[in-house]
């Protein structure tokens, strides 16, 4: 009975769990459908269409077709969740548009009819401090009334501004009035703007007539904050056209704040580079790194139409994005500057100088972006990075400063590294040359192999085999046993020890063999026999051997042929001069082989080598050991010659 109860209890628990899981799955499925079950709302705006989703939704792509079924807009999106989507579109009045929204799995179709006529109106943005450009397609500017909060450092001089964009095909006259309270002292007003005194402050007045659609005008002034109390600034724009009159009001509540309070409320969360113009990290790049590929690749990309050639000085090469977090209860207006300097100095390298157009009057050659930090949230500030020619590889410093608007003292300084990397053209060139040589050598070997050995007596083949065995036993076996230990103990200096076996002893034996059989192809055969023995006895077959082996054989055979040993054959005189020439030519060939080996490791095994190491490798393993090896080989071969005779 007790058992049955326990079993029943377990069953009920399992059933409960199953039911819970089923509910969770159903809830998840239901929540996944919600966003598109309620069709998104399409709103036609000036030069754009806006889609409003029921909740943030991942859109894969959007296509808009007109009444003639022509695609007038198509854009792929990165499946980032967004609640609103604004798409630029020069729509025609009183027309039906079909909007296809793809999610990757299915497509939702929305039909929307544009207004009968493009509504006339105006977008007005007013700010003190004026901390940003008018957002394209923004609905905010078209509201009749709006009220925003701004802040600025106490006692600072800030720039205020009002931008006015005219919508509609017909001209309109605009009257702009800006009321500034007593606590603001006017420092500078643009020409043509009238200043008059009102009961408790000043009024700035101006008028303009705008006729072209989307025409933009702006009014900029500078004021100084004299008080510690909040200030209320108002702007009124009256629009008059043939139809009638419209009034647009903007109110700015300006909160003067002590510098220390601004500093406490701003925090730099993250800095990304390189990013897109929208502030998204370029995932194909390494963080804080700018990579400059070979010029030939850039040209190839241009030919293929996948990338443009280096842009002009006026457009950003890339961007960096700063995430600033504000804990203040009111928006904070800040100026963020960034400049790239040498690592150890404060100077901006000429290749990172931003164009004057963007530097404005800043003295420190910075890029400056004004931004308003929304209260208690993170604001993304995207800053362009200008490069006018390919910089030298190395480490640079990115100095990012944050200033409160109207103040010259930064509240935050951040220095981040910038790594500039380039393709190692030497390594690539050497690898390509090695590849070409190997292919050439391989083709030559395939075509001429039979010819090389055709008239070779069996005795020669046996002698070559013997030398192959000796080189294997005298070089490969000790190296296989001790190489790892030598490398572990001596690190980069191990080449000086391994080179003794690899070059000095090897060339001694090769020269001794060539003294006996001075024929082309002998070195190749010894090498191949040694390689096969090594592969079979010690397990060393590698796909890259084709590359290194091909280069090595071609260069050695060429050096021996040039020195006259395999060209003159038995007529070659082993005089001191001829031996020296052989040593030099073989040394040069071996230097090239050593360099190739190092660079193949750099390219294919992603290893780093210092220049001095490459130099040591070329000098000692290439010239010194090879040269000594050639002379020792000549001396050693005298005995063998005696035995042969």
């Amino acid at each position, binding site marked *: 009975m007790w058992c049955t109860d326990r079993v029943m209890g377990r069953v009920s628990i399992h059933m409960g769990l199953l039911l819970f899981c089923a509910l969770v799955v159903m809830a998840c499925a239901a929540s996944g459908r919600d966003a598109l079950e309620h069709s998104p709302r399409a709103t036609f705006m000036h030069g754009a269409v806006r889609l409003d989703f029921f909740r943030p939704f991942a859109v894969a792509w959007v296509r808009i077709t007109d009444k003639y079924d022509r695609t007038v807009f198509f854009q792929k999106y990165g499946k980032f969740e967004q609640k609103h989507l604004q798409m630029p579109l020069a729509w025609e009045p009183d027309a039906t548009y079909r909007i296809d929204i793809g999610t990757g799995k299915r497509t939702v179709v929305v039909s929307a009819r544009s207004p009968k006529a493009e509504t006339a109106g105006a977008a007005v943005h007013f700010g003190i401090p004026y901390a940003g450009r008018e957002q394209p397609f923004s609905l905010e500017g078209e509201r009749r009334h709006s009220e925003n909060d701004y802040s600025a450092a106490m006692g600072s001089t800030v720039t205020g501004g009002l931008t006015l964009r005219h919508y509609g095909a017909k001209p309109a006259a605009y009257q702009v009035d800006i009321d500034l309270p007593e606590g603001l002292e006017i420092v500078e007003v643009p020409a043509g703007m009238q200043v008059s005194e009102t009961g408790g402050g000043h009024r700035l007045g101006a008028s303009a007539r705008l006729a072209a659609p989307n025409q933009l005008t702006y009014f900029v002034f500078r004021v100084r904050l004299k008080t510690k109390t909040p200030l209320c600034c108002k702007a009124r724009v009256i629009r008059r056209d043939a139809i009638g009159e419209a009034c647009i009001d903007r109110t700015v509540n300006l909160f003067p704040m002590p510098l220390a309070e601004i500093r406490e409320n701003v925090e730099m969360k993250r800095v990304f580079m390189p990013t897109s113009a929208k502030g998204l990290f370029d995932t194909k790049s390494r963080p804080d790194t700018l990579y400059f590929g070979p010029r030939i690749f850039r040209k190839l990309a241009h030919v293929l139409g*996948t990338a443009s050639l280096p842009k002009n000085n006026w457009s950003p090469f890339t961007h960096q994005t700063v995430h600033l977090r504000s804990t203040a209860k009111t928006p904070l207006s800040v100026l963020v500057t960034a400049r790239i300097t040498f690592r150890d100095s404060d100077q901006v390298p000429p290749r990172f100088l931003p164009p004057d157009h963007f530097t404005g009057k800043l003295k420190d050659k910075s890029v400056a972006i004004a931004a308003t930090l929304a209260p208690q949230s993170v604001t993304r500030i995207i800053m362009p990075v200008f490069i006018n020619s390919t910089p030298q590889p190395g480490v640079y410093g990115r100095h990012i400063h944050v200033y409160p608007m109207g103040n010259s003292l930064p509240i935050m300084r951040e220095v981040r590294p910038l790594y500039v990397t380039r393709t190692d053209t030497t390594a690539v060139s050497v690898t390509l040359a090695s590849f070409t040589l190997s292919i050439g050598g391989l083709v030559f070997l395939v075509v001429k192999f039979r010819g090389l050995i055709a008239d070779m007596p069996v005795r020669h083949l046996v002698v070559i085999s013997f030398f192959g065995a000796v080189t294997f036993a005298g070089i490969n076996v000790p190296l296989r046993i001790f190489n790892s230990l030598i*490398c572990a103990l001596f690190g980069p200096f191990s080449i000086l020890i391994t080179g003794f076996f690899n070059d000095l002893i090897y060339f001694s034996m090769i020269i001794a063999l060539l003294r006996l059989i001075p024929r082309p192809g002998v070195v190749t055969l010894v090498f191949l026999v040694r390689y*096969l023995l090594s592969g*079979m006895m010690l*397990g060393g077959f590698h796909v890259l051997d084709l590359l290194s082996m091909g280069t090595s054989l071609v260069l050695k055979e060429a050096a021996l042929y040039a020195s006259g040993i395999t060209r003159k054959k038995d007529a070659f005189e082993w005089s001191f001069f001829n031996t020296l020439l052989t040593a030099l030519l073989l040394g040069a060939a071996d230097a090239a082989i050593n360099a190739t080996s190092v660079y193949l490791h750099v390219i294919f095994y*992603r290893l780093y080598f210092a220049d001095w190491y490459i130099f040591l490798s070329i000098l000692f393993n290439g010239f010194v050991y090879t040269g000594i090896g050639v002379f020792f080989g000549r001396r050693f071969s005298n005995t063998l010659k005696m035995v042969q005779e």
Partner: protein
Amino acid sequence: MEKKSYTHGSVFSRIDPRAKILVLLYASTLSVLLDSFYALATMGILCFTAVLFSGLPAKKIAWICLAAGLVTWGTMFSQAIFYFGEPRTVLFNLVRLDTPVLGWITGEMNVYREGLYHGAIQSLRFSAMMVLGMALCWSTDTRGLMQGLLGIRMPYILSFMTVTALRFLPGIIQEAEMVRRAWKVRGMALFSLNPFRMAANWVIFVRPVFINGYRKTVILSLSLQSRAFSPFSDHSRRDMPPMTKGTRFVCWLGFAGVFGLLAVKIMYWLYIGGIYYNSALRGVYRVCRFYV
């Protein structure tokens, strides 16, 4: 000195030698292609697993592990010094700029922490290949490997020469041992800190080995000629039986896998180099970036 397989009866020793050579070539291609730490580590683990299940004696496995450990440390050591990627953290200084001679040659030489990591990761390429190569080599006798090489179209003349070289090895070792004993009796040392002295010693050491060996080559070649043997004639070669269907399938599967990975990697390199981008391949790029 013909090398015998150490793994009689194990799965490894039963695999067709041609398939073993092909697997080795595929693995070596992968060791060059792979970049991700996870992929390299997976390859390393697979290679070590192959060694563990190869049926090799424990002593051999221990030797392989020691060699792999030394290779890893050697690579870490050199990369810790040579690393010039960024960021990098100096652990300690080896050579200062004002150090006499060495400072002039090498400049400031530091040991970098990131270089040690980089070396450890990159050494997986070498150690994995070394381990697999040794496992495959030691689990196959020389004759089998030679037949395998012939099976993948190696010229017969090379096979003949390699076998001949193999036959010389015991004699060479015997001669070298005799000379070593003679040197020992006379109180002579082969190794010296002076490279010229050491090279001269080496030449003196190998001279008798060479002369005796060379004499034997004359005898062997005369013996071969007297039997009218010619390595150039086709009737000297023995054909290998064809691979089984299963082995052939595995070889082709490996080829397709490696070739596919190469194609994927090329697409990724084209994207990284800014030469070709296709949004339909975003998944491929992502996989390549994080896992390949």
